[in-house]
C-alpha cells in the first residue's frame, strides 16, 4: 500500500523540490512538489495526499498556516515538517499541534523514512 501512497512536497526552495520527489520515488512513493502552500491547496491532489512534507517558512502562507487550514477543512493529512532553521524549539510546538515529525535540514534518508512510516501508520 505504501507504494501507492501519494507524498506531496511543499517547499519554496527549488533544490528541495527537485531532489526530494526523486528520492521519494526511489523509495517507492508517488510524489508531487509544490512551490507554495497556496499552489498545493489549489491543486487536485489535496484529498489524495497520504502524507505532506511541508516547509515551515515560506512567503505568503507558511507551513503552520497550511496545517491550520487543513484542520479547518477537516482534512486529516499527516504532516512531516521540514525546516532549514536551526531553531529546535519549534519542533515540540509543531508536534503538539498534530504534526507527525519535524525534520531539520539537512536530514538523512533514514530519518525521512522513519517519519514517513510513522505518518503512514507502518509499524
Amino acid at each position: 500500500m505504501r507504494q501507492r501512497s501519494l507524498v506531496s512536497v511543499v517547499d519554496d526552495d527549488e533544490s528541495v523540490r527537485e531532489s526530494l520527489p526523486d528520492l521519494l520515488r526511489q523509495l517507492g512513493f508517488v510524489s508531487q512538489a509544490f512551490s507554495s502552500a497556496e499552489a498545493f491547496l489549489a491543486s487536485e491532489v489535496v484529498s489524495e495526499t497520504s502524507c505532506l512534507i511541508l516547509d515551515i517558512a515560506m512567503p505568503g502562507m507558511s507551513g503552520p498556516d497550511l496545517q491550520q487550514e487543513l484542520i479547518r477543512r477537516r482534512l486529516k493529512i499527516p504532516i512531516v515538517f521540514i525546516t532549514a532553521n536551526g531553531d529546535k524549539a519549534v519542533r515540540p510546538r509543531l508536534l503538539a499541534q498534530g504534526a507527525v515529525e519535524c525534520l531539520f535540514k539537512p536530514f538523512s534518508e533514514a530519518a525521512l523514512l522513519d517519519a514517513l512510516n510513522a505518518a503512514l501508520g507502518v509499524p
Partner: protein
Amino acid sequence: MDAARQYSADLLRESERNSRLLVDSIPGLVALLTAAGEVEFANRQILEYTGRTLKELKQWGTNDTVHPDDLPHVIRAFAQSIASGSPYEILQRFRRSDGAYLWFQNNGFPLRDASGRIVRWCVLLTDIDERKHAEDALRESERESRLIVDSIPGFVAVFTPGGEVEFVNRPILEYFGKTLEELKHWGTGGMTHPEDLPRVAELFTHSIVSGDPFEFEVRARRFDGVYRWFQSRGFPLRDTNGQIVRWYNLLIDIDERKRAEQELRRSEARKTAILDSALECIVTIDHEGCITEFNPAAERTFGYRQDEVLGRQLADVIIPPALRARHRQGFARYLATGEARVLGRRIEMTAVRADGSEFPTELAITRIPLDGPPSFTGYMRDITERKRSEEELRRSEAFLAEGQQLSRVGSFSWRVATDEITWSEQLYRIFEIDRDVRVTFEVIGTRVHPEDLSGFTEQIERSRRDGSDVQLEIRLQMPDRTVKYVHIVAHCRDDSGQREYIGAVQDVTRRRRSEEALAKVRSELAYVSRATSLGVLTASIAHEINQPLAGIITNASTCLRMLGADPPDVDGARETARRTIRDGNRAADVMTRLRALFSKKEFSLESVDLNEATREVIALSLSDLRRHRVILQAELADDLPIITGDRIQLQQVILNLLRNASDAMAGVDDRPRHLLIGTEREGEDRVRVVVRDAGVGIDRQGMDKLFDAFYTTKSGGMGIGLFVSRSIVESHQGRLWAEPNDGPGATFSFSIPRAPATVTYPALAGNTKV
C-alpha cells in the same frame, strides 16, 4: 373929567416916585426896563456901583458895562427872554466904577398888567463875586486834586451815592485799558474775575445800601487779560447832614503779596503733604532737643501719636535708654562747639518703639537753614527689611558663586560701546586670572588657545557689528599649557541704545574628555553592533547553508539508490550527482559572501555598485524576511552610478534597515507585511537607498531619539543599530533620516555622495585611516 384924569396922573406919578424911592432904598442893584427891554430906571446902588449915568447904562450892549467876554452870551440870553416873555437868569460880570469886573447873578422877570400884557421888566443884580471866586477856587482845587489823584500810583475811583462810577484816576484807565464809560459797567464788563464777582458784588451792594465802608480782595483783569489781585477799600463821604455824597474807592495792587502768600500756602501744603505721605519718618526738633514735628510715618514706625510726643525730648522718645547719654552729649557738644559728627551723614543706629522693642534704623539729620536758634530735621527709616534683604542678597550671591563654581559656569557682561567687561568670580577662576586684573580683550586673548584665537576675534567683531547671539566653543590654554574647553553663549540686549552682551562661559573640559571617552566606547559599540548583527544573522546563515546541504544529502541518497537498483539507473544517478555539485557550490557561495561580510575590519574605500551590494544583503536576509512573512519588493534603479565607499559598512546599514523594517512589522496581522527596498539616483552626484515598511510606524516625537545609541522600541534590541548606521552614513558624508508614511509604517532613507571628498569616521576613529 380932565381934573380927574389929572389927579389920577398925579397920583400915578406920586406912586412911581414912591416906588423909585423904595427901589433906591433896596440894598441890591435893581433896574426897571420897558417891555421892549430898554433900561428905563436904575436904582442908586447901580448908579453908584457902575459910576455910570442912566444914559450910559442904556448903552450896555455897546459899552464895557458888561464884561466883553460875557457880552455875546448875555445879549443872546436877554434877547431870547424879552422875545419870549419868560424870566431869565444870567451869570455875568459887571464893570465896577473902578474898572474891576465883579460877578453878578442877573435875574430878570416881567411885570404884567391885569390883562397879562408885559408892561415892564424888573432886573435884580445880585453880587455873587465872592461865591463865584470861592467856586472857582474849589474847582481849581478839585482839578489839582484830580491831577494828584491821577499821578498817585494807586488806583482811585469815585462812586456816586448810588454806586455808579463817577470818576476813576488815570492809572485805573491805563490798567484796564477801558474808558470811564466802559468802566461804569464793571459788574458785567469782564473786568472782575468771574470767581470773585458774586462775592464782590454782594459786598459792594451791601455797603452802598448800608453806608458801611467796604474792604475786599479781588482779582481785576488788566488790559492784556492778566488778572492781578487788589485790595479794594471804599469809604463814604458825607455832608454836614450826614448824607452820603460820594464813595471813595482805593484799590491797592497786592498781587505780589498775594502770590507770595499763595506760594507760602502751597509750600506749607507741600511740606505737610510730604511730611504726611513720606515713607520715611521725619522728626523735627528745636535747639533744646524737643520734638516739634512728628510725621505719620514716624507715628506708624514708633507707635506714638504726634500729640503724645510734641515738646518731649527726642532722646526720651526714640533713642534706646543705653544710647541716650551719648545722644545728649553729642547734642550738647554741637550746640557748644558746632562740631557735628552726625549732621548731613547717613548713619545706622538702633531705635526704640513705644512698646520698647528695638529695631535698626537709618538716620540722616540736617540743620534747618533758618535764622535763630538751631533746629534740626531727622529722617529715619526702619531698615529691618533692608537688612534682611541685604542678608538675602548676600546669601543669594553666595549661592550664585557657589553654583557657578560647582557647575563650572562663569557669567559676564560686555558693554559693546565702551568694551567694559565684567566677570563673575568663577570666570576669573576658569581663566585662572587674578581677581584684581581689569578684564580686557587683550587679557582674554592671552588665555585663548592660539589656534582658536582668530576664530574668537572674528566672533567678537561680528558681535560688535550686528549684536547677534553668540554660541561658541573654544579652547583656552593656561600658562602651564593645560588646555581647557569652554562653551560660550551670550545674548545681546539693547538697553536704550546701549548694547550689552550678557553671557555665560562653561568649562566643558570634563565633558569634552568624556566625549572623547564616549567616542572610544562608540567604536567599541560599533563592534558590538557588528557582533550583534552577526548573532542575528546566525539563523539566516544556518538557513542559507542548510538549504543547499539538504539538497546535497537528498541528492546523494537518491544517487546511491539509483546506482544500487537493478539495473542501476546510471543516467538518473549522474543527474543527481550533478545537482549535488550545484548545491555544494551554492553553499560555497554563501560562505564566500559571509566571509566578505565578516572578515574585514578596516574601513576601506572601493568602487561599490549599490544595487549589487543591496542584492547581496537581500540574498542574505531573504530567508529571515520570509520567516517573518515579509513580502519584499526590490526596486533597484537601472541608472545607478557606481559610488566610492566602504561596501561592507554600507551593506551593514542596509541590513540593519531591512531588519528594523521586518521587526516593525512583526506584530502586523491585519495587512500584508510589505517591505520595499529601492535605490535611486539623486541628482547628478548622489544616490539614495530607501527602505519602506508597513509596520507600526514612528511618531514624530520619538524621531529625534531614533538615532541615539541605546534608544530602542524593541524589547529585545540593544538600540545601537540606527546609531551605528547613522555614523557610517555620516562618515560617507551622507545623511540618514526617517519619516512616517502617509499610510502605515515608516520610511528610512540614506543618501550619500558618489564620491566623498574625504571620509572621516569619528565613531570608529580608533581604527580608521583613510
